[in-house]
């Protein structure tokens, strides 16, 4: 019995269980500290919809054996370019949103292709190279945001300044176009973001279906055993490039959906550390450096966003401090360190 329990804990992973229990505890505490349970749950769902696609974007690269995508910023930059150009063109509503997506995907295909070529050259060291490729691309874009010839007065610095603002509001353009799509309001406290959740479900389904196709299966084969895949006649480099492009494209879509819910487009240095929460969420969901599933994406996003939403509201009302930010840093980065130090067991199959 004891051995069985130990096995069960080992297979789920101790940190994941602790995080799950912590979240349950937070939910139980809500009525006692004067926080409404239904509002909190609703907040978690809204944030789940906003962040889910970014977490999903990590999935193809883990599948192809490229590891955790520490260079997520490349996709985010493509998304930012798409959304800024769409606003520059003064497009409003769903048109603006989909034009932003289209332009973003265009950039993501280019960035993802080059990024994939680079990662093929550095097999075995993808993660550390990706980290710094991500960082340097963010700093290149800092220069670009300053010198690109944008003209719309709503997005450039006022009073004759040059360059884009650090934070651009998308209100009046395509703010909440997804969130308000068939929005369901129950009572005063629950407002279900149907459009966002549907969009996330749709993309998740597409990714799931893609990995059932021949190319998808080949990518999985490359990820689980590259030599075996090579001997089967699969072009491993090509499969890896496809997975990297896919990751970058989904990340570009993910950041636009995030902005749509958040209301602001954040430029300059703000994408710098964005990969880490997404990676932490995937890992909390049960993924490891070499293994992930759609289930991990959904559970992980829910648990991680749950903690992010609940700790501030519950903790602040108990001990009157903003300790939640520190807890967030420790949980998310601790989770990544834990995953990196776990020795991958060789899967016998």
């Amino acid at each position, binding site marked *: 019995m004891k051995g069985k329990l130990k096995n069960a804990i080992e297979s789920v992973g101790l940190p994941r269980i602790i995080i799950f229990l912590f979240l349950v505890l937070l939910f139980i505490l809500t009525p006692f500290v004067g926080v409404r349970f239904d509002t909190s749950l609703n907040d978690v769902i809204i944030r789940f919809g906003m962040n889910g696609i970014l977490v999903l974007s990590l999935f193809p690269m883990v599948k192809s054996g490229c590891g955790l995508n520490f260079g997520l910023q490349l996709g985010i930059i493509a998304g930012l370019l798409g959304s800024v150009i769409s606003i520059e063109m003064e497009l409003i509503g769903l048109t603006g949103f989909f034009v932003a997506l289209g332009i973003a995907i265009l950039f993501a295909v280019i960035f993802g292709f080059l990024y994939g070529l680079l990662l093929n050259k550095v*097999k075995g060291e993808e993660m*550390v190279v990706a980290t*710094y490729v991500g960082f340097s691309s963010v700093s290149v874009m800092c*220069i670009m945001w300053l010198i690109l010839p944008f003209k719309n007065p709503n997005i450039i610095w006022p009073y004759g300044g040059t360059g884009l603002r650090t934070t651009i509001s998308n209100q009046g353009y395509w703010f909440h176009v997804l969130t308000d799509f068939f929005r369901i309001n129950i009572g005063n406290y629950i407002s279900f973001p149907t459009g966002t959740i549907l969009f996330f479900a749709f993309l998740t389904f597409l990714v799931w279906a893609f990995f059932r196709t021949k190319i998808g299966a080949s990518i999985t084969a490359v990820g689980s055993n590259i030599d075996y895949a090579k001997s089967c006649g699969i072009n491993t480099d090509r499969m890896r490039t496809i997975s990297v492009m896919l990751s970058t494209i989904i990340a570009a879509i993910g950041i636009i959906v995030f902005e749509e819910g958040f209301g602001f487009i954040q430029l300059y240095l703000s994408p710098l550390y964005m990969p880490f929460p997404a990676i932490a969420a995937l890992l909390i969901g049960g993924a490891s450096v070499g293994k992930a599933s759609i289930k991990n994406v959904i559970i992980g996003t829910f648990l991680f966003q749950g903690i992010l939403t609940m700790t501030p509201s519950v903790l602040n009302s108990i001990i009157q*401090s903003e300790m939640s930010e520190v807890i967030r*840093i420790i949980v998310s*980065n601790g989770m990544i360190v834990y995953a990196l130090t776990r020795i991958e067991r060789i899967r016998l199959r």
Partner: protein
Amino acid sequence: MNKRSNLTKTMNPFEYFLINFAVPILITIIVIIAIPLSGLSWEFLIRELVIRLSRDSFLILALLIPIIAGMGMNFAIPLGAMAGQIGIIFITDWGIVGMPGLFLAVLISTPIAILLGYFAGIVLNRAKGREMVTGFMLAFFMNGIYQLVVLYGMGSVIPMKNSSILLSRGYGIRNAINLLGIRQVLDNLIAIDIGGILVPIATLLTIALVCLFIIFFRKTKLGQDIRSVGQDNEIARSLGINVEITRILSVSISTILACYGQIIFLQNIGSLATYNCHDFVGVFAVAALLVGGASVRKATISNVFIGVILFHTMFVVSPRAGKELLGQAQLGEYFRVFISYGVIAFSLALYAWRKRVEKENERKKTMAAKRSIVVNND
């Protein structure tokens, strides 16, 4: 180690030189172009360089030993920096000034640095083959613990006497602390005026001492062990070396040196940005070392000093050059951030690419050898 890799064997020496020193050459060109553009006087530049040489070299020297141990760039040196900052916070709280204060800070922070270094060593041992990215994430994680201790623990759990360094709510250290008590005490201990430039002899002597320590250390039994661990873990193990302990020791030494390095850095700056001055310690140190011509596998003391001079000259001149060239100082700021990250990305990619090509060649060779055996048997 002088044996050239299979990849570079086919190249002519000029190409070999270009690829190996692409980063230093590129930065030298940038610096040569940017110095006249910035319009800064030579006197100003040299004064800045002397300051930065004495301020930053120590931290970069801390990177050397893990490289010898084959663990790559130690992106976990912010752990040492945080240990140093805790020592500095305590002596500021107790109001101990001057050289005694500095020594006390060293005394307090050394055990913390040893502890953190040991912890980092254990973590990195469990992440063999991806030490760099793990070290990097470890620094992020430890930043959370540091904030927990300094922002919430100090003044509530850990007693603090001096309320002027605490936040107005009664616990937690302020965002910025003035280090008037130890400001440049080491720099001014023996300072000689050479042609209008104040040279901090004591600090430079300390740095020289560390260089001597590293040179001497390489020759000791432990130093030799570290070197053989760096060349091949399995061979080292068969020689009877405890690979795990050796790696933990090399990371610990690096963390302790980083701790002292940060203390020297802070006494020069004269103020402590409590929550973010350790953020960029790792990145800037690694970038400077790479600019000095080091690689992930090989770094020498001369790389450290060439790196500090080139990297920091670029740091000083690029905002001014950006302003003169394009009318925006901000552009130069972003440019130097880009260079720091870009240099690291480029060098790591080059290293990984080479490693892979070598592996591939090795495999081809063994395959060819096997095939020839089969052919001979026929």
